[in-house]
C-alpha cells in the first residue's frame, strides 16, 4: 500500500473506497453503454438508478431525508469517477448539487420532505433554470417575474439552454419578485412541476452527443401555490449563491472525469500503436502533450478538492474563489485532454469506434456553462486582483 500525499492529507479511506466503488460501477457500464444510449435516443436510466440505489447520487444530502449525510466533496467524487469511465451524468450537476443543496439549506420542511428523498435516491430529478435569452453571462438581466395573485404566484418569462427539463419531475426556476423594481436583482426561486399548466418547453437542437438535452422554457402566467416559493421571499440571493459553488465544483468534476477518460484512451493507444520501430508513445511529440494533460488535470483536481473542502466546512465565500478557479482550470484541462487525445489517435481519433471525437464538443461545455471562462477571468480580475471593472 502506498502512502502518498493524496492518501494522507486529502482523501480519507471512505472517500477512496467511494471512488473505487463508483469507478467499478461505471466500468460495469462503460463508454459503449453511454454512446449506445445517445445513439438510440435513450437516457442513461439504468446507470442513474443503480447509482441512486447505491446512495451515490445523494451522498451530499442530509441523512434524515434519505441522503448520505456527506458533502459536496463526495458528490464530486461520484461525478468525476463516473466520467472517468466514460459515463458522465450531467444531471448530477443540477439535480442533487444545485437543487438538492438549495432545498436542503433553504427549503421549507414540506419542500424537503416532498423532494429530497427522491433527489437522493435518484427516483426524482430536478432541473435548474436561470439562463434567459437576454440574461446569460449577465444574470442581473433576468426578467422572469412572479407576481402575487391571492395566495398564489403567477410566474411568467422565458428560459433557454435548460438541461433535462423533459426528464425532470420539476424545474427550479430563478425569477424575481414583481416589487423588485429598484433595478437591483432580487431573485426568488420556485419549484415548478413539469405538468403545471402554462409551463412549456421545446428542445433546442444542439450539436452535442449527450443523452441529456437542452430546452427553451416558456412560462406563461404559470399559477403556483404559495408553497412553490423556496424558503423565504427575501432569501433568494442567498439561495442562489448557495447553489453556485456546488454548480462550479460539479462542473469541474464533469470536465475532470471527461479529461481523465480521454487521456486514458490516448495513453493506451500511444502505448500500443506502432508506426515506426517504437510505439508512438515513445515519441516525445506524443508523450509530452499527454504528460502535460496529466499535470493539468491533476492540478485542477486539487483545486476542485480545495473548493469542496472549503464549501463543506461552511466557508461559502472562501469556497467561491476556489470553485471559480477550479471550474476554469478543469474546463481548460478537460478540453486540452480531449483535444490531445483525439490527435494522439490520428485518424482513429475521429472514428465512432474510439468515441473521442464527440467529446470535442462536449468538452467545450465546461468552458461556456454555467459561467464562461471570461466571466471567471472577470471575477478573478476584480475580486481577487482588485482591478477595476470593465462593465
Amino acid at each position, binding site marked *: *500500500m502506498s502512502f502518498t500525499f493524496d492518501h494522507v492529507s486529502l482523501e480519507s479511506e471512505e472517500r477512496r*473506497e467511494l471512488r473505487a466503488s463508483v469507478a467499478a460501477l461505471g466500468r*460495469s457500464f462503460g463508454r459503449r453503454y453511454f454512446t449506445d444510449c445517445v445513439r438510440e435516443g435513450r437516457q442513461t436510466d439504468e446507470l442513474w438508478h443503480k447509482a441512486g440505489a447505491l446512495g451515490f447520487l445523494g451522498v451530499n444530502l442530509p441523512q434524515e431525508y434519505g441522503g448520505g449525510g456527506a458533502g459536496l466533496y*463526495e458528490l464530486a467524487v461520484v461525478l468525476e469517477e463516473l466520467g472517468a469511465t466514460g459515463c458522465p451524468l450531467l444531471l448530477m450537476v443540477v439535480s442533487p448539487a444545485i437543487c438538492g443543496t438549495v432545498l436542503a439549506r433553504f427549503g421549507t420542511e414540506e419542500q424537503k420532505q416532498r423532494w429530497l428523498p427522491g433527489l437522493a435516491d435518484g427516483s426524482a430529478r430536478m432541473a435548474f433554470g436561470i439562463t434567459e435569452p437576454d440574461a446569460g453571462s449577465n444574470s442581473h438581466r433576468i426578467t422572469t417575474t412572479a407576481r402575487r395573485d391571492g395566495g398564489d404566484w403567477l410566474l411568467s418569462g422565458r428560459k433557454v439552454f435548460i438541461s433535462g427539463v423533459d426528464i425532470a419531475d420539476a424545474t427550479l426556476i430563478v425569477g424575481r419578485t414583481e416589487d423588485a423594481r429598484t433595478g437591483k436583482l432580487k431573485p426568488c426561486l420556485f419549484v415548478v412541476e413539469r405538468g403545471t399548466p402554462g409551463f412549456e418547453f421545446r428542445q433546442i437542437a444542439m450539436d452535442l452527443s449527450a443523452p441529456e438535452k437542452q430546452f427553451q422554457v416558456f412560462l406563461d402566467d404559470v399559477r403556483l401555490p404559495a408553497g412553490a416559493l423556496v424558503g423565504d421571499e427575501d432569501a433568494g440571493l442567498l439561495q442562489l449563491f448557495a447553489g453556485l459553488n456546488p454548480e462550479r465544483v460539479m462542473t469541474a468534476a464533469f470536465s475532470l472525469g471527461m479529461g481523465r477518460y480521454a487521456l486514458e484512451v490516448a495513453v493506451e493507444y500511444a502505448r500500443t500503436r506502432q508506426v515506426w520501430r517504437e510505439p508512438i508513445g515513445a515519441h516525445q511529440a506524443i508523450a509530452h502533450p499527454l504528460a502535460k494533460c496529466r499535470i493539468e488535470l491533476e492540478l485542477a483536481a486539487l483545486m476542485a478538492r480545495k473548493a469542496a473542502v472549503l464549501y463543506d466546512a461552511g466557508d461559502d465565500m472562501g469556497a467561491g474563489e476556489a470553485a471559480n478557479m477550479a471550474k476554469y482550470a478543469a474546463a481548460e484541462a478537460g478540453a486540452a485532454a480531449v483535444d490531445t487525445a483525439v490527435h494522439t489517435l490520428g485518424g482513429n481519433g475521429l472514428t465512432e469506434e474510439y468515441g473521442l471525437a464527440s467529446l470535442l464538443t462536449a468538452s467545450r461545455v465546461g468552458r461556456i456553462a454555467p459561467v464562461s471562462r471570461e466571466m471567471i477571468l472577470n471575477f478573478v480580475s476584480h475580486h481577487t486582483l482588485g482591478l477595476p471593472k470593465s462593465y
Partner: protein
Amino acid sequence: MSLRIVVCVKYVPDATGDRHFAEDLTTDRDAVDGLLSELDEYAVEQALQISEASDDAEITVVTVGPEEANKDGLRKALSMGADKGVHVVDDALHGSDVMGTSLVLAKAVEHVGYDLVVCGMASTDGTMGVLPALLAERLGVPQVTLLSEVAVADGQVTGRRDGDTATERLAASLPAVVSVTDQSGEARYPSFKGIMAAKKKPVEELQLSDLGIEADLVGLGGAWTAVDSADARPARTAGTIVKDEGEGGKQLAAFLAERKFI
C-alpha cells in the same frame, strides 16, 4: 437461533498489476497494491443473499493475511454488508501454503462458530482451488463445492453445480462448507452507506497462539511444498497483425494452419 455464516476471503495482489515473487519465492506484496480477491466477492455476495433470505443471520468474514489484509481486504467485504470480521495475522504465517492456511482457517472458523462456511472457487493469486475441500475435511463437515447457485432452508444447504456434461443438484445438512463460482451472480458494489458503516464494524485480530496453533505447522517452514525456483514468463513478443485487404480470411487460416491450430 440465528444462522451463522462465515465467509473465508483472501487478500491478494491486484491481478491487473505487474506481479512478481519476492526473494524467498513467496508472493511479493510490496510491488503491487493488494485487494480482496475478486473471486471471493462472489462468496460474500451469496452469503449476503442467503442472509437476506433468512430472518436472522449473521455474516462473519474471516481472512488469514498480512497487516493490510484488514483495511484493504476485509473492509471491502464489510462495506458490501457483512457484519463483522476476523483477521488472523502473525509473522509466523509468512509463506504458508494451502495446507497451513486451511489449518488456520479451520481453527478461526471454529473460533467464530458457524452453520455455513462460504468460500470463493479459488484465489486469484495461488489459484489452488482446493482450500474449501481441505477446510471441510479439517472441520469434519460436508462440502458442496463449485456451486453456481446456492440456498439455505430447513437446516440444509442446496445448490447447483454446472459441469461440462451434466448439471448436478446437491444438498448437504448444516453445518457445511460450500464454494461458489464466478457464475453465481454479480457481486454488489459497496453502497455509500455500506462504506460508511464498515468502518464501525468490529474486526477481531487473532494470532496463532490465540487459536492454539503451533508456529512450525504453518509458514514457509511448515509448508508441504517448497518452491525451488521461479522464472518470469518471457515477455510476449509482438503479435502478427493480419490486414484485411480482401485476403484477410485466407491469411488468417494460413497463420493458424502453420502453427497447427487448424
